[in-house]
């Protein structure tokens, strides 16, 4: 077999694949932002430095852990799962339910994340502990059609529509006091957002880099409060920065602006 055409194929793949990534990014940011939400450190956490990484990376906190304390399916119920294309013909308490739902593949869907809305208020009421430091970003709806989802949640300053992988499960909550599981119910579980860790361009990262490394905030970063200049670990009560977060045509988020939280 001739070597030159094969090397040309390898080179073409090595160039075209990154090019497609560039194009995807460009198409995401080409038009007007699909949504723009101003969030704080509570919603976009600094990923701890480590493994040789010395620059700040942010992670969207959408209250993943609350999924484990659910006592009922909430909005992500049987009807929603059926609408997303899952096979929901078995009852959650059927003996075969665990295997039946466990083998159903995860699906990519569009997810509405509501910032500081009724869902956040209801959660704070139900779980008052950590209410002042918990993220105010909560999943509130999902659909296979992004436009239909946006039509149901038209506030683009409060609701982000993003892509996520979700799955169906028959879930019984373990109660450590009674040492028993509650009767199982069928619910949808969000496995992850397709873009959950967000890289910030070097030009907008000075404040975050300083906070992540525990250094004093550089003067050019424009720190205005004691909390913002303190560095080190985040305060439980006072967020140290605010971020303008945008999503674009492909519903992938990016950071448009970072500033100290006043």
């Amino acid at each position, binding site marked *: 077999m001739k070597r030159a055409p094969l090397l040309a194929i390898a080179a073409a793949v090595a160039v075209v694949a*990154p090019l497609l990534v560039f194009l995807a990014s460009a198409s995401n940011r080409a038009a007007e932002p699909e949504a723009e939400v101003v969030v704080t450190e509570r919603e976009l956490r600094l990923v701890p430095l480590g493994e040789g*990484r010395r620059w700040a990376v942010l992670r969207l906190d959408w209250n993943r852990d609350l999924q484990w304390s659910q006592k009922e399916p909430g909005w992500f119920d049987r009807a929603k799962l059926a609408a997303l294309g899952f096979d929901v013909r078995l009852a959650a308490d059927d003996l075969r339910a665990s295997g039946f739902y466990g083998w159903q593949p995860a699906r990519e869907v569009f997810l509405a994340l509501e910032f500081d809305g009724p869902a956040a208020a209801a959660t704070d009421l139900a779980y008052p502990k950590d209410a002042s430091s918990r993220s105010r970003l909560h999943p509130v709806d999902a659909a296979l059609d992004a436009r239909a989802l946006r039509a149901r949640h038209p506030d683009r300053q409060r609701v982000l529509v993003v*892509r996520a992988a979700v799955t169906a499960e028959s879930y019984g909550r373990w109660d450590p006091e009674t040492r028993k599981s509650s009767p199982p119910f069928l619910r949808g579980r969000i496995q992850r957002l397709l*873009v959950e860790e967000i890289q910030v361009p070097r030009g907008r990262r000075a404040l975050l880099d300083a906070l992540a490394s525990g250094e004093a905030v550089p003067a050019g970063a424009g720190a205005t409060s004691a909390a913002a200049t303190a560095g080190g670990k985040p305060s439980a009560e006072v967020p140290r920065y605010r971020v303008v977060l945008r999503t674009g045509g492909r519903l992938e988020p990016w950071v448009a602006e970072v500033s100290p939280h006043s």
Partner: protein
Amino acid sequence: MTEAGSGPTPSSREEAQRRADRIGAFQCELAELEREGALRLTEEQRAALDLHHSGLLERLAKTYDVDRTDRQRRLSSGMKAATLLGALALAAALYTFLYRFWGGMPVALQAGVVVATPLLLVAGMEIAARRERSLYVTLLLGLLAGASFVIGLPVLAGLFNVALPPVSLLAWAAFCGALSYAYGLRLLLVAAILFALGYAGTLSGPTDHCVWEAFGHRPEAFLPLGVLLVAVPRLAPHRSLTGFPPAFRTFGLLALFLPILILGRAGNASFLGLGPGTIEAAYQLLGFVLAALAVWLGVRSAWPEVTNVAGGAFVVYLYVKLYDWWWAFLPRWVFFLVLGLVAVGLLLLLRRFHSLSRRSTA
């Protein structure tokens, strides 16, 4: 009399090595036959044969750097291991070095590094392949090129906050596959096959988007690719790349037998809309029939890798079935005794086949 060491030149290093091995074995056996008095060559014949063989070995060594002695063979094995370890260590060094300075680089430079690294390493492969016959350095650079492309793409996607779809597995498969065929590097072919299988594993339905999390939830998605992999050596003969067909057959069979094993125990994982019990029974039966057929085909076609993989699959299917039947109610010692007796039974059966085959050969 032809010129010493003349004859057709083998088309690949593997073929050349096999020829060199055959010459070595022939020389040993000839010496044994002469000692036993079963064969006596004249001085002239002996000299001509030695001259021919030494000329041939010299030519093979010059063209393909074949191993001529056991010591050379052992050294070659060590060099292969060193190549693998070296590639791993160098990939880790490259990754950690770039990672150390990554945050300080402008985006354009980061993107440039990600795109250029695999291309430079491919260029390095070409230079190395022109200078060496054994291709150890070429393989090392090839593994590095593959690693840099596989690591670079998600890094780039992360840099621009783009969700990388599982179809990137096909890009990795194409990259590694093209390099493997360009230089005859079987390890890169195995990587390409595994990436292709990885992509197949994420397919969860004809109309769904693939997501990484869906991997393995519909094992039937592996089956068409498994059949295709087994068929590749028949569809496209690999005359010069003689090490490739066994790799295709081995991974093709694994892509058939492992999903069938899973589907035989978890009918819920099937695409088919039948009851789980029916699906499990059907796949258990299919597994036994397919494994037995593959053993027969492997013996008949002299494909040892097919015989080994299929034989192993048959034994696993059998033991899993015995577990289902008896583990719950037989005392443990009786259960393991039964397993042992089954193994002895299989041994006797294979011995019977062996003696039948010896008789038919005679």
